[in-house]
């Protein structure tokens, strides 16, 4: 079993395509939708956690590419700008998945991309604009 967190970007033409249904039914993949949004330009963005056998996963991702959905690993869409971060920790209690953790000895934070679900709660909380989300 493989598990991936992906950001899917849909052009307007495929916004109405039931792609989650297809991934589950036709490719036997487990799809967990973490976040979904359709922009004013009618471009769709979906953040999913997807798991299945390697072959099925490859085929499913191929299907997405074929119909014009751009697939990116989730981590690419979240950037912690360490040089702007002061390690103040004000963002920490707002993170719902403990993706921002504090080393209580050093009183410094670190960002665990794998735990991040790109909810965006840290963005307005950061006084130094040290987190960027391209979503």
């Amino acid at each position, binding site marked *: 079993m493989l598990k991936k967190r992906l950001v899917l970007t849909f052009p307007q033409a495929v916004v109405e395509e039931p792609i989650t249904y297809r991934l589950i039914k036709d490719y036997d993949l487990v799809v967990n939708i973490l976040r979904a949004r359709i922009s004013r330009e009618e471009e769709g963005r979906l953040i999913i956690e997807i798991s299945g056998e390697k072959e099925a996963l490859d085929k499913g991702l191929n299907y997405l590419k074929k119909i014009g959905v751009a697939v990116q690993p989730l981590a690419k869409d979240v950037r912690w700008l360490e040089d702007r971060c*002061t*390690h*103040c920790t004000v963002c920490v*209690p707002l993170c719902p998945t403990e993706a921002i953790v504090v080393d209580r000895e050093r*009183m*410094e934070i670190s960002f665990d991309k794998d735990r991040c679900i790109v909810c965006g709660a840290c963005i*307005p909380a*950061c*006084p130094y604009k040290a987190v960027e989300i391209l979503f």
Partner: protein
Amino acid sequence: MAKTLAEINEKIKKGEAVVVTAEEIIDLVDEKGIKKAAQEVDVVTSATFGPMCSSGIYLNIGHSKPKIKLGGGKAYLNEVPVYTGFAAVDIYLGATALPDDDPRNRVHPGEFRYGGGHVIEDLVAGKDAKLVATAHGTDCYPRRSLETWINLKDVNEAVLFNPRNAYQNYNVAVNLSHKVIYTYMGILQPNLGNANYCSAGQLSPLLNDPYYKTIGVGTRIFLGGGVGYVVWQGTQHNPTAPRTEKGVPRSSAGTMAVLGDLKQMSPEWLKGTTMTGYGVTLSVGIGVPIPILNEEILSYTAVKDEDIFAQTVDYSEAYPQRKSGSLGEVSYAQLKRGKITLQGKEVPTGSLSSYAKARKIASLLKDWIKKGEFLLAEPVELLPSVESGITFKPLKERPIR
């Protein structure tokens, strides 16, 4: 055995001074006791780094040809309005100033992406800033408008002058209401969703000299990465705040007004800061050396996070409505562990003050002193303490009919 400041400076000049940070002194006192530690240690370095709204800079930009009198006119740096009510080319830029066309909170919560604090950070980073000014024109200053790039290296004086910094202790902010609120203490989740504090605790300057027995007008300090001075008590200085038996204020108490040459400073220690839904400000790094003149002064510097308490205050109702009352007292040791218990609920904590950066400042200042590059200054006048009777008064409103 008591020491004088002159003796300590002699040791610093010879490279023989024993300097430790306000964190290191804790273990040293635990190990050796107050008496022995006071004999051995000459200076304890304290520090803090956090948003400090009563901050700003004044610049003398030099005279244009022909001359313009900005005094009484209008001027902007990177679209941010500056105060011009001085002579011809002196301007003051405050940390919380916003561009005239910033939408502020018209769509709540406002983003407040750029303002005075950010201009200050950009200037110390060496970036050019756009100065746009208009004036009424006089016989001796005929010019009426000016648009030019300026750079910190080209202006005459550039001085960071902060009327209130480094609060001695502060509130812990929480939200008892049922909706998210956006405050200068950060985003506060409803129903006690988080608790935000803002102090370096055991490292914080005024918590290491709680009765201001060494800090006063003329104290030389680390300011924004350069050398600065304490020039007065800060605004809202409140030495008569309630204290623990050891003298530690239980709520916000003393403050300092500080000043220093902006040209020596660095963007690492002066950072433009955004508080969503609230505004902009400047985060300032300050380090204060405390001369160990006697055992009493040393004993104050050994203060630990578990001995420093702060009041939790509801920012949805009590704070804005100026209602007194604390929801409970918590120690900085608890706050720094990441969770406190309030009204039977476990509440996660976040800090606005960066302990990591405060620690770095304390250690930088320690290095400066050990290398003999930074001498301690004898204050001309200590900050007013408990016996001054100074209190922090609310506004007595007298409606104008």
